[in-house]
């Protein structure tokens, strides 16, 4: 393949960020336009990569490799397979929509968009990295911009949330780093290359010891209960586009890394610990949904809803079955878009009404019908309603879980019902009912905002009604991973 498409996808945002930093502070439109172009290039690239991927051939495609730090055995090695490709696509979609939704941001836009783009480079890098050192660099690269983005442009208790998030995530990733270092050295190969390390047969005791810090360390970012508490506060405090990236993509980064590094490299360790971890995921699903139900701030609702839905992801991974893993990957994609829509919608509402308290809202469908419809679409997907991508994901996860741990499947169904309950309730309370006096004159949805919402909804509905293209890609990735770890 001639075009280094993955590098383009990954570095376009960084280049954009550098250009933005060089622009004068007051050239708002230029700054935003640069951000839009940079993110659009990545988005386009990811869409192209997705449809150009040959799923009959399978395996790693669009591979690039370059020597980097030979002394440590580190190379710049990137590539995508059926599992990482949907996530790359997801990131492209969310960053582009996120930039559009942030268009009206006028407080220090230069740093804002520069940080946003830097963040997304780290995310892209994590998904495509095939070298563990590179994966780490990109993983941690994503954490610091989060701190600044939340700390400077955030709202409720932003400093507390930003610090909590940063420290939590770093503790998790540090543990994983330690584990990875040990593994790399223990392999005796003197390399950090993922594919090389995967061929090594570590002893079962070693695997069992090393799997846990790596998996848990990464899955902190995936919101695994009880190490999820950074997430709701982080979601609430972050500005809209950051929340979209945070819940939509960052959390997937954690789950993905846990899968790619933990399970892929140490399958025996995985087989030993996952039956216990799956219990935690069930708690995620039910607890997250239940707490979401009790919230008054809509962003907290979505935050806890994310905790709940990410539970399905780790649950699917924990089944170590074809269909469970496929469901987990699909859920990563589907939930990513869906929560992107939620946060975008909430952000648009908040911008106009200046409140996120559900009892204070109401009747907004009259003023913001577009937002309402998008919210409802995302809501239906989150309930697992057929016709939307969420159903395809949850159905597969449930099938996978039911086969191996039926009790867990039954417990998680409680989550489904509670989810439906709060989605319905809050959708009604926010968008229907009487419209308050003070909201009579709020501005309607702008064109850019409509484009962002429609763009995301198209994927939820599209892959819900026609899941085949996505499923085909995912299936190849999953079956190869499973074959590799047998």
């Amino acid at each position, binding site marked *: 393949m001639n075009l280094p498409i993955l590098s383009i996808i990954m570095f376009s945002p960084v280049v954009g960020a550098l250009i933005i930093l060089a622009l004068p502070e007051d050239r708002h439109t230029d700054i935003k336009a640069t951000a839009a172009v940079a993110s659009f290039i990545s988005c386009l690239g990811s869409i192209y990569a997705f449809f150009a991927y040959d799923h009959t051939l399978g395996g790693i495609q669009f591979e690039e490799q370059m020597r980097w730090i*030979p002394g440590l055995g580190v190379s710049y090695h990137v590539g995508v397979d059926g599992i990482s490709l949907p996530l790359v696509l997801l990131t492209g979609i969310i960053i582009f929509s996120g930039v559009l939704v942030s268009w009206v941001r006028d407080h220090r836009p230069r740093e804002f968009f520069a940080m946003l783009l830097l963040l997304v480079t780290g995310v892209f890098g994590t998904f495509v990295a095939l070298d563990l050192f590179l994966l780490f660099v990109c993983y941690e690269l994503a954490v610091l911009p989060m701190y600044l983005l939340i700390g400077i442009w955030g709202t409720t208790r932003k400093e507390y949330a930003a610090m909590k998030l940063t420290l939590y995530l770093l503790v998790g990733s540090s543990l994983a780093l330690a584990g990875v270092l*040990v593994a790399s050295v223990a392999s005796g190969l003197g390399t950090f290359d993922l594919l090389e390390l995967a061929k090594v047969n570590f002893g079962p005791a070693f695997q069992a010891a090393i799997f846990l810090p790596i998996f848990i360390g990464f899955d902190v970012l995936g919101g695994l209960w009880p190490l999820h508490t950074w997430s709701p506060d982080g979601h609430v405090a972050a500005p809209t586009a950051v929340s979209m990236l945070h819940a939509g993509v960052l959390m997937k980064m954690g789950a993905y890394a846990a899968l790619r590094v933990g399970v892929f490299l140490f399958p025996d360790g995985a087989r030993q610990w996952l039956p216990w971890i799956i219990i935690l995921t069930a708690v995620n699903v039910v607890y997250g949904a239940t707490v979401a139900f009790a919230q008054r701030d809509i962003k907290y609702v979505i935050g806890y809803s994310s905790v709940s839905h990410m539970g399905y992801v780790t649950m699917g991974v924990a089944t170590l079955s074809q269909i469970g893993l496929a469901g987990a990957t699909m859920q990563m994609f589907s939930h990513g878009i869906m929560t992107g829509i939620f946060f975008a919608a909430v952000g648009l509402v908040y911008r106009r009404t200046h409140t996120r308290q559900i009892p204070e809202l109401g009747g907004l469908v009259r003023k913001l019908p577009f937002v309402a419809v998008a919210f409802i679409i995302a809501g239906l997907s989150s309930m697992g309603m057929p016709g939307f991508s969420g159903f395809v994901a949850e159905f597969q996860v449930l099938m996978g879980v039911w086969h191996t741990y039926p009790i867990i499947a039954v417990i998680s169904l409680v989550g489904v019902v509670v989810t439906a309950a709060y989605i319905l309730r809050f959708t009604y309370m926010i968008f229907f009912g009487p419209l308050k006096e003070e909201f009579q004159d709020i501005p309607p949805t702008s064109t850019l905002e409509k484009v962002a919402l429609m763009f995301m909804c198209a994927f939820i509905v599209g892959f819900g009604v026609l899941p085949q293209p996505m499923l085909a890609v995912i299936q190849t990735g999953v079956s190869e991973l499973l074959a590799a770890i047998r």
Partner: protein
Amino acid sequence: MLGDTTQNLALILWQLSPELILLLTGLIILLVDAIRPHQADQGWSPYAALAGLVVALVACITLLGQPPATVLAVLTLDGLALVAKILALVSVGMVALFSGPYMQEHSRHQGAFYALLIFATLAITLVAGASNLVLIFLAVDFLSITSYILTGYLREDRRSSEAAIKYFLYGAALSAMMLYGMSLLFGLTGATDLHAIAAQLGAGTTEHVTVLLAMLFVMAGLGFKVAAVPFHQWAPDAYEGAPTPVTAFLSLGPKVAGFAVLARFLLFALPQFQVDWTTLLLSLSAMTMTGGNLIAIWQKNIKRLLAYSSIAQAGYLMIGLVAVSGGGLASLLFYLAVYLFANLGAFAVVLAMSRGELGEQIEDYAGLSQRSPGLALAMLLFLLSLAGIPPLAGFVGKVNLFVAAVNEGLIWLVVVGVLNSVISLYYYLQVVRQIYLLPPTSEEPVSIPRPITTTLLIATAGVLVLGIYPSLLLPLIETAVQAFFGG
């Protein structure tokens, strides 16, 4: 014969050229300073110092390819010594560069200041190559004395004098301890040359405890120099009270010297006792990292914060020593280089901020990102590199150290190390928080003198380049160190 002698002399001169150049530079500065009237402008002195340092640096680089050699029976010229010297020269060079405006503002005796700085550097270069107990002691003491004077340089400033006194008292005691330890070794082996000591001990000794004691005392003395826990008590006060350029120097120079000589001492003189000193270093390292980081959390003064941060960084450096068999030495030196850029860069920012008496409290940095975005960004990069966040050099440096540790099976140390990185991030972020999150107290940008800007650019480049492409430096260090182990 004469030809041989001449050739030998030439060789020795060449081998000693960095030291000689430094000596010369120091003397020249002193002389010129003595001759010129006091009221005259003394702005030339930093540049004179810088010139001398650069020439010495060039000399060191020319010596790099040479096989290890012993000079005058007391100095060793090998990869370790040369790299250490280069690091020291670069550090002091940067200090000389950015200290000009500050010293101009605060003192009337700049010439002497730079002369002292050069002499201190000379001491460091001697320490780096010393392979004889006597020379080690002399050179270390030389370094200490010049450091005390530098610390107390601002005689009118009470804090500066107080800092110097504390430093002196503490240093004197630990220095004596080190001397005692050395004398124990001499007593046991009858030798002062490190290799000879090893040979003597290698023949077997029943005085195991004495050796351990000696080792402990020497390490105490050297630990004091690098500000390791529990020999660190002097550091926060000294760092806070000393003039900021001196603080910057203290955070680098003695560390380079201390670690170089500690490595040499342990590896040359006590190779049979590796198990013992490795265990000791293990605990020291863990204590230093954790102690330094934890106390740093409470600091409100930027210089004190950086002091505790330096203490903690010494702990990381020690990991390299603990894991010396697994490639730890190279990673130690690399980390010193990385730390050099980040720490000196941070101090350059502190200098830029501390015009007048303001700017030493962390809250004085509020809103810096809106006043001077470039300065803020630089500080951000330095702090993140110190914390070990990719893609900055600190991350690569730490990974290097951790890999060496894992190679030796020291997994717990690595865990302590990574967790400490997270703790350190907390207090570094407090500064970041001030800079980026809080609104500024004044709207005007910080005026940065040219020399400081240059330093900032060098440091930023170092931190970024070494983070993204460490292969620029790493292989060089590794080859240099290879020879060390061969010899």
